[in-house]
């Protein structure tokens, strides 16, 4: 079925009405429903509620699906679930459209024609797919080159990814490569200062004053529903006094609009501003002397004379004001408010799952948090305890696997590198076939061709790998250039055991069971695929389970052995567990692994709400055992010039409905891209009236945004929501794949990037790009047409 875009827009009202009465999108999905062997409407049969876990983003919200007959008619938050607490974001609400999407992949697809088009694929059986892949894998093992198998994965919290990683380890490849743009910079800052490889978890709920330096935690945090709930507590219920939120950023985002005060700042000056605040706090003696003296190092000594000296020498109020565009008085006021707050908290620039920010900004913010004693205290920056099932028990590799695992990783990241994964470097290695060629590339839970900062290099790289296997529910950009597309079930169709998302300070395990009696199509869970491949390649000792259901149960058995935590429950239950564990007792409410399995199925999961604040041996693992104020790196930041030259600063952001590069395939989400400007179904660029005037841009006209590398055409939105001298463009549209409602809609501004990396982190620098903005040619320039 092909629906013209404008016709579809007209039908959206019907979709909304359908959703409002608990239907599945009115008649808009009639074709899809009609083809899914279901009576069209109304659904008939007994009503049932089934618990599951939303995987539309990394947030891992526990959900409750309402089923009538075999039709899922509504998805809502699971009230007992510690992440969602009964709430759900629009992406979760749109899960029904994803489940019944007409372009869902129904069988495995084998590419038989040129890469890049779904027409180049022909349907195949699972047996054919697995036989071919397993045959290739066996050959590789026979040739003793297991390192030539690569896994590029988007997450690490779901059961499918854990099975894939276990398979890769047993097979003998070191190339377990994460595509984790959203959390990389924050994790690096934590590692550099505290020696811990983890994602920092800011305690928004426990704070009473938040200084957000461009953190879009109300729209695109790693766990948006949890962040929104924490924000609600911060504002209303947790503390006796309503928490105050200050947002400092060049753009008036949803988070900024929710704040008590938005302080516009010049692009690229977040780190300068944060260190300016730090300098003012130190200058006025408002920092936490006890923490700095007892737990810190590098404050009074080290390169440049230590942090105190560098702040004094390089971050005077006048310099910071001149660079950031914020007045001295405002900087001083914010510094005093932050230091004077009982539980002040600073949040770093984080624009979404694909735009995690720059290390310089995260580092500066983390140092500022440390200066006010905000490390591992309530209302500060916490580090979640590991969940017992996150890491699989170490196995004893066979000789082939042991030799393979000793090979260098193709992306050069990993234990010796600051980066946990480097997809762009992987692309270069795949293309050059150095240090060794890759033979098989599994891509799971990510669409790197869309999200990479080096699109062309990645495209070329895929051509050099003999066998590219992508898992997807709908063929995305990467899938279209793969050799095999293996159809995944929707999350409501399969088992899952999901651990707590990044940025959440407690350990949790969510358990999902299939909400429908059988999957709509001939799909298989990635865990089932890797269990099958393990059997076919003689690795069943490492993955002995029959299917994903058995594996789920085995993971819960391991969880039971950890002897901590409790079944998820009400706030009272949580307080009870906190109190008990705080006193050294364990009273979980279950007495056996069987009971834990049963109760997690009934409630949605397990968690451990207790946090052991001030466990310094756990959270300070630097060689000195102290928080390292890294004067060496602050010196580098001080020496860098944040000025934007040669055009307008490109500000990228991720609206919640399409954050992480997912969501554009769903009409419900396309219809609410931006609640402020009411943008729909296209990419827009926000420019300040002064900038628009200088460039002769009119509101609503097409404008051309060009980098040295690429140009795109977007709708001009003239607004004071963004500072002058910049253009702000959302990421999430402009797909080559993604089904009929995503393909060719809008633009992908990530293509404007040209691989520029931040020097101290080697991360792609999404914030450093400058672009030339002009009125689009009346005839030549239209969205999708590139120069």
């Amino acid at each position: 079925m092909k629906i013209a875009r404008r016709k579809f827009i007209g039908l959206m009202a019907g979709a909304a009405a359908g959703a409002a009465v608990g239907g599945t999108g009115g008649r808009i999905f009639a074709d899809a429903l009609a083809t899914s062997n279901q009576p069209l409407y109304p659904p008939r049969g007994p009503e049932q509620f089934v618990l599951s876990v939303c995987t539309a983003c990394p947030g891992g919200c526990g959900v409750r699906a309402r089923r009538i007959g075999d039709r899922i008619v509504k998805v809502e938050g699971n009230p007992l679930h510690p992440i969602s607490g009964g709430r759900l974001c629009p992406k979760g609400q749109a899960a029904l459209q994803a489940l019944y999407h007409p372009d869902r992949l129904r069988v495995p697809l084998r590419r038989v024609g040129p890469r890049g088009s779904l027409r180049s694929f022909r349907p195949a059986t699972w047996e054919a797919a697995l036989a071919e892949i397993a045959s290739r894998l066996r050959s590789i093992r026979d040739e003793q080159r297991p390192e030539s198998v690569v896994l590029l994965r988007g997450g690490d919290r779901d059961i499918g990814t854990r099975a894939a990683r276990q398979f890769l380890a047993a097979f003998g490849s070191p190339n377990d490569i994460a595509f984790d743009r959203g959390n990389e910079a924050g994790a690096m800052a934590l590692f550099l200062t505290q020696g811990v490889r983890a994602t920092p978890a800011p305690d928004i709920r426990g704070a009473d004053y938040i200084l957000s330096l461009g953190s879009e935690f109300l729209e695109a945090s790693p766990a948006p529903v949890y962040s929104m709930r924490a924000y609600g507590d911060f504002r209303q219920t947790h503390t006796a006094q309503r928490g105050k939120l200050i947002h400092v950023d060049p753009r008036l985002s949803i988070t900024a609009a929710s704040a008590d005060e938005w302080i516009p700042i010049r692009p690229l000056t977040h780190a300068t501003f944060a260190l300016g605040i730090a300098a003012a706090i130190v200058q006025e003696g408002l920092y936490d002397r006890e923490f700095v003296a007892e737990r810190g190092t590098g404050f009074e000594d080290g390169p440049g004379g230590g942090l105190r000296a560098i702040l004094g020498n390089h971050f005077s109020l006048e310099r910071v004001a001149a660079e950031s565009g914020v007045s001295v008085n405002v900087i001083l006021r914010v510094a005093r408010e932050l230091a004077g707050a009982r539980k002040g908290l600073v949040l770093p620039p984080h624009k979404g799952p694909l735009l995690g920010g720059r290390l310089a900004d995260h580092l500066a913010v983390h140092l500022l948090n440390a200066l006010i004693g905000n490390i591992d205290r309530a209302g500060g920056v916490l580090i979640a305890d590991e969940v017992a099932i996150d890491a699989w028990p170490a196995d004893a590799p066979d000789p082939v696997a042991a030799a393979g695992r000793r090979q260098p990783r193709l992306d050069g990241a990993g234990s010796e590198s600051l980066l946990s994964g480097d997809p762009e470097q992987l692309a270069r290695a795949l293309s050059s076939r150095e240090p060794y060629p890759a033979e098989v590339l599994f891509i799971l839970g990510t669409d790197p061709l869309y999200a990479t900062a080096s699109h062309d290099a990645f495209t070329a790289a895929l051509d050099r790998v003999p066998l590219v296997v992508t898992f997807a529910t709908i063929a995305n950009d990467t899938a279209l250039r793969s050799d095999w597309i293996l159809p995944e079930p929707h999350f409501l169709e399969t088992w899952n055991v999901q651990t707590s998302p990044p940025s959440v300070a407690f350990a949790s395990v969510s358990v999902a069971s299939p909400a429908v009696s059988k999957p709509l199509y001939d799909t298989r869970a990635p865990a089932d695929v890797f269990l099958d491949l393990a059997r076919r390649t003689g690795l069943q000792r490492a993955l002995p389970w029959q299917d994903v259901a058995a594996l789920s149960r085995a993971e819960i058995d391991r969880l039971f052995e950890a002897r901590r935590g409790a079944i998820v429950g009400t706030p009272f239950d949580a307080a009870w567990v906190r109190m008990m564990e705080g006193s050294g007792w364990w009273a979980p409410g279950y007495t056996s692994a069987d009971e834990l399995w049963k109760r997690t199925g009934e409630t949605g999961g397990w968690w451990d709400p207790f946090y052991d604040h001030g466990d310094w041996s756990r959270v300070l693992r630097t060689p000195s055992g102290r928080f390292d104020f890294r004067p060496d790196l602050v010196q580098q930041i001080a020496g860098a010039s944040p000025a934007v030259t040669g055009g307008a600063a490109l500000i990228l952001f991720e609206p919640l409905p399409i954050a992480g590069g997912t969501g554009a395939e769903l009409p419900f989400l396309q219809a609410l891209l931006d609640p402020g400007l009411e943008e729909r179904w296209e990419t827009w660029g926000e420019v300040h009236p002064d900038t628009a005037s200088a460039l002769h841009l009119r509101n609503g006209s097409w404008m051309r945004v060009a980098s040295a590398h690429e140009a795109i055409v977007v709708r001009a939105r003239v607004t004071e929501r963004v500072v002058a001298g910049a253009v702000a463009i959302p990421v999430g549209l402009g797909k080559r794949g993604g089904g009929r409602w995503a393909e060719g809609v809008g633009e992908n501004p990530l293509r404007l990037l040209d691989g520029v990396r931040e020097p101290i982190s080697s991360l792609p620098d999404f914030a450093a790009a400058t672009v030339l903005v002009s009125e689009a040619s009346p005839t030549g320039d239209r969205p999708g047409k590139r120069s």
Partner: protein
Amino acid sequence: MSSAPRERGALAVILTALLLAAATAHAAGIIGDPARGQLLFVSKKCVECHAVRGAGGRIGPDLGRSSVKGSFYEIVAAMWNHAQTMDEKMKELRLIRPQFEGTELSDLLAFLYFLNYFDEPGDAKSGKSLFAEKHCIECHAIGKEGGRTGPRLDAFPRGTPPLQLAQRLWNHGPAMVAMMHTRNLEVPTFRGNEILDLFAYVRGQGQRRAPRTFKSAGDPIKGKQTFVSKGCSRCHAVFGRGGSIGPDLGRAELQGSVTQLAGRMWNHWPAMSGAMQSMGMSTPVFHDEELADVFAYLFVSRYDADNASADQGLTVYREKRCSSCHGPRGEGGIGPPLSRITAGQSKEEIARRMWNHASAMSVRMNDRQIPWPRFSADELAALIRFVSNEWQQPAARPAAKTKP
């Protein structure tokens, strides 16, 4: 006074409770399940008005900190006495008054009883001061400060459960007391929350060597055996069973959480030591889970303790004017005949029926301008025993109680 059968009954209930909380064993359908009671505390809306140590509503008293502590009868008496006020408040809040089915009340009571066993987290800051005030610092080091005579206290793994610390404290008593006498230092004693605070400080100082571990409650059956084998029972009775040299531990000695009990146990060291020496006994040393087991035993022992006399029930029945509705001989009147309803029933079942009829009873009493009857724990124990036993057929009555 507690009888052997009643003690065994209570032990069965609370033993299960402790074992359940300890996550050791559970058989379906056993009454007195505190885990279920915790769920009922929420689902029956108790939590709307009452908090447990800060978590929950603020209308009624915090049940983790209030005087609603003690035996089965003390808790039930407190519930009953507040029933009329509670009814009015629930009507005001448009909440449905909780009724209990099956073992629900028993489960809820197990949970409420249980609250007293576990400690609240102590105050580490206060504990740091106590570490100096109690002279621990003279011999033990934490961080850069402290003496070297005794072992470093930050060598304990972070988060060491309090009872493990208590056991270590107890076991090193002989050496420590001798050393303190040598140095002319006062042997420390603990009041109120002091031991909790001190342990909170010590527990937070060590390095974490392994994933956090949590302690389960002890095993009361083993605890009873240990109580005898270590010679405690030669000096101490528990509700009249045992020696009489030391105080009966079934009385006021059992008030407080388990670690507070450990503190009081430590406080009696000088007296105990002297008495044991005179009896030719050596000071008991506890290994593994022994101390936790002993405390579990002592704790469950007080569950259905009371001081009611056997003939007090009839007096209570008359004085509280139960007879005006239910008849002088339980034959019924305005209210139903108790001789048919309560005779032979367990105390949990009678308490449940009392609670469930309180709302209707309140209306009748208001109509007749009779004040709401309030009970002490002993009065309630006597009344329940009376309405359970008095109207049974002689053949069905239990054998006369004998002291163990």
